[in-house]
């Protein structure tokens, strides 16, 4: 049976297609880079191709505007992610292993939440945060975001734990492991892949989250990147070069993150979906 491989023409076609697609997908990346070196005049006269002289000054300006916010974003994103997963994993363990009375009701209710449009609930949520003195504080913000992240994480993790062989838990239990220990020593190692994937997804979404920080944070020195940059570009005359440089800088941490975790991620998303 050596007819598996197709002719060279077909193969070339496939690769050609993929490279074209890649080119298109990378377009924004390219533009971001090119424009970040332009003065407004250059940007105006020749937007899409590199122009000389390159204005490295833009990057300095960009850094000055963004630098302040990076720390906030990292703090916010990491705190949120850790909190979200810590809470979700434990709950998922219960949902995945046991049928506790009324558990399913809560489960249904949880899934319904995914469909709730948020705008109108924004005001009540805000009032609530006010009552709890959670406004203008990164911690408060990350707690709320963690609540938002629950639904997806639970949904995916539960299916995973459900499909894990019973034996793992049984052995652990025979060794007298408490529920919590079972989570630590059985669930976490076994679901490492999917957990890290969820972590990345959470991280990215928090990193890009906009409306909530915009509303709940007051002091400029607390703002995360997305909002800080929004303020920068809300100016009545855009300085395109520094703007793009700033955005580029704000993207770098994500690049680093991906560089390290790509492997889990690519696998994880897939696995998660099949279970879903």
């Amino acid at each position: 049976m050596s007819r598996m491989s197709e002719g060279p023409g077909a193969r070339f076609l496939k690769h050609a297609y993929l490279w074209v697609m890649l080119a298109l997908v990378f377009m924004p990346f390219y533009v971001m880079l090119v424009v970040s070196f332009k003065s407004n005049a250059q940007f105006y006269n020749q937007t899409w191709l590199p122009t000389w002289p390159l204005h490295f000054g833009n990057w300095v300006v960009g850094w000055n505007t963004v630098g302040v916010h990076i720390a906030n974003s990292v703090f916010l994103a990491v705190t949120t992610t850790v909190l979200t997963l810590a809470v979700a994993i434990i709950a998922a363990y219960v949902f995945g292993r046991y049928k506790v009375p009324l558990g399913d009701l809560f489960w249904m209710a949880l899934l319904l939440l995914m469909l709730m449009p948020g705008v109108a609930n924004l005001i009540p949520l805000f009032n609530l945060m006010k009552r709890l003195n959670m406004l203008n504080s990164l911690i408060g913000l990350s707690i709320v975001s963690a609540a938002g992240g629950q639904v997806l994480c639970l949904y995916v993790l539960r299916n995973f734990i459900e499909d894990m062989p019973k034996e793992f838990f049984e052995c652990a239990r025979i060794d007298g492991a408490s529920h919590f220990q079972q989570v630590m020593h059985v669930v976490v190692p076994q679901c490492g892949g999917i957990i890290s994937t969820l972590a990345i997804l959470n991280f990215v979404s928090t990193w890009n989250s906009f409306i909530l920080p915009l509303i709940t944070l007051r002091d400029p020195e607390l703002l995360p990147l997305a909002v800080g940059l929004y303020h920068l570009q809300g100016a009545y005359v855009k300085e395109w070069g520094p703007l793009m440089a700033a955005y580029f800088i704000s993207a770098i941490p994500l690049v680093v993150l991906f560089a390290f975790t790509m492997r889990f991620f690519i696998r994880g998303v897939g696995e998660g979906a099949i279970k879903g």
Partner: protein
Amino acid sequence: MRRAIGLLLVSACVALAAGCGEGAGEGSGGARLEEGWRAYSTGDFDVAVSVFEGVAAAPEATAEDQYSALLGLATTHHLRTNPDFPRARESYERLGELETPDALRQSTLGLALVDLAEGTAGLEGRTNEGQARLMALLRDFPDDPIADEAVIHLAASLLEPMPDKAAPAGFSLPPSGREERGANVLEQRLQTDPDNRLAPSMHIMLANHYKSIGQMREAVDHLIIAEKKGIAGVKTRSVVLWQIARIAENELKDYDLAATYYERYAREFKRTTLFYRARESLERVRALKAQEGA
């Protein structure tokens, strides 16, 4: 699902509990009352209510404190953004039981206003009750300054077009005769006490009434008197001057009068959007006058 709801209630309580940050601070009746009134004036009604209730309930509260507290409580319930008429009514009545003349007047006026408000909101017969109360107030305390405000509210309720679900416009004009009564109330007050502290306001009301029924001469006369008696508000004053001049020119064709008041307007209100128009109109009426002369 019931479970979920129950959960929500629990968490709601948590939230509320956490929310009740500002406890009622201590302090002498006077200080607390000032705090309450300030809260009232800045629109923190919940604070105001809690303060006033606190003082009113305090055993050591003096009669004055009681009076101020109950008045504040009633007024807050009555005029807060989402009025609570039943409780306002109840506190006004408590106020009335204090039996100092001041308390009695304030409570009567308050109750009347609540009645009127409920009447406007569509409760049957309330309007009449309110008006009756106000008349009683006028009868019992004719020479107390509070009567002035009573007159204004009474007149207002008689003159105002009533909201009316049935009417295509959502409002219906007052039935014939009611407006006249409104006007009479004002005019009587102005006869008995022509220089009461709200006299200018009353004249303005009368002027508005006459304008609306097209008796422009009377309207202008009242405006002129109001202006003579002295209007405290700068903006109000500019409007009055303009109205006199405009009506005199367009309706009465009394160019002398128009000229005098345009002139005053142009002299006193340089920094208004009507300034240029006033100067222009002044030229015009002068020209017209000249024509008449010739």
